[in-house]
């Protein structure tokens, strides 16, 4: 599964993209975020307040209860500041 990070989520984690094998039992955006938290200090810092984290699954805005599966492109980022 390809995971992308943007904004301060990316800068806290230290990289903007990674290829991950989804662990058994992780099948939603919320589950993914919870699992990522345990992967190190950068991750823990990025997702310390998971409520503010926005997600996109296959480039579509997706709430945290959205189902995810191998092959999906998941992006995690702070609220957008376009315009």
């Amino acid at each position, binding site marked *: 599964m390809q995971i992308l990070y943007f904004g301060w989520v990316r800068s806290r984690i230290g990289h903007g993209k990674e290829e991950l094998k989804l662990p058994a039992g992780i099948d939603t955006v919320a589950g993914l975020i919870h699992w990522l938290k345990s992967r190190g200090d950068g991750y823990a810092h990025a997702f310390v307040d998971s409520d503010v984290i926005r997600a996109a699954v296959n480039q579509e805005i997706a709430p945290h209860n959205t189902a995810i599966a191998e092959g999906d492109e998941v992006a995690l980022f702070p609220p957008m500041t376009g*315009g």
Partner: protein
Amino acid sequence: MIRVQGEDFDIGVEIARMTEGNTEIGALASFVGLVRDYAGDEAITSMTLEHYPGMTEKQLERLEAEARKRWDLQDVLIIHRYGKLMPGDRIVLVVTASPHRGASLESCQFLIDWLKTNAPFWKLEDMDSGAKWVESRQEDFVAADRWVRVTDG
């Protein structure tokens, strides 16, 4: 039409291109967002716009389609830049063309309000004290929410 690009744009050229050969257009509204030199009390030396290639284009296309559905528009142009910009640089251009001034101005406002909270861009401001991510503002969500229709979905 939507364009996501690093390069600057020329508003006069873009508007002329839109109106040449279309004499049905009566009203053209446009909005340009620029990099301001200050964030609060501190001077900004530059601003870097990060975006989500692929998704950005999708979101802008969807936004254009939504505006065309809601208003009687003859043309829509959205140009959004990314990369490193300096104070005074143009960030975004929205132009809407309509037979009527109300439709052009209202849809222009709609587009820029939605871009603020729905276009996958993130702004990093460089200042003497270091780089700082621009935080989303509550009032931007309020402005975007004005356009959410009860009948949506």
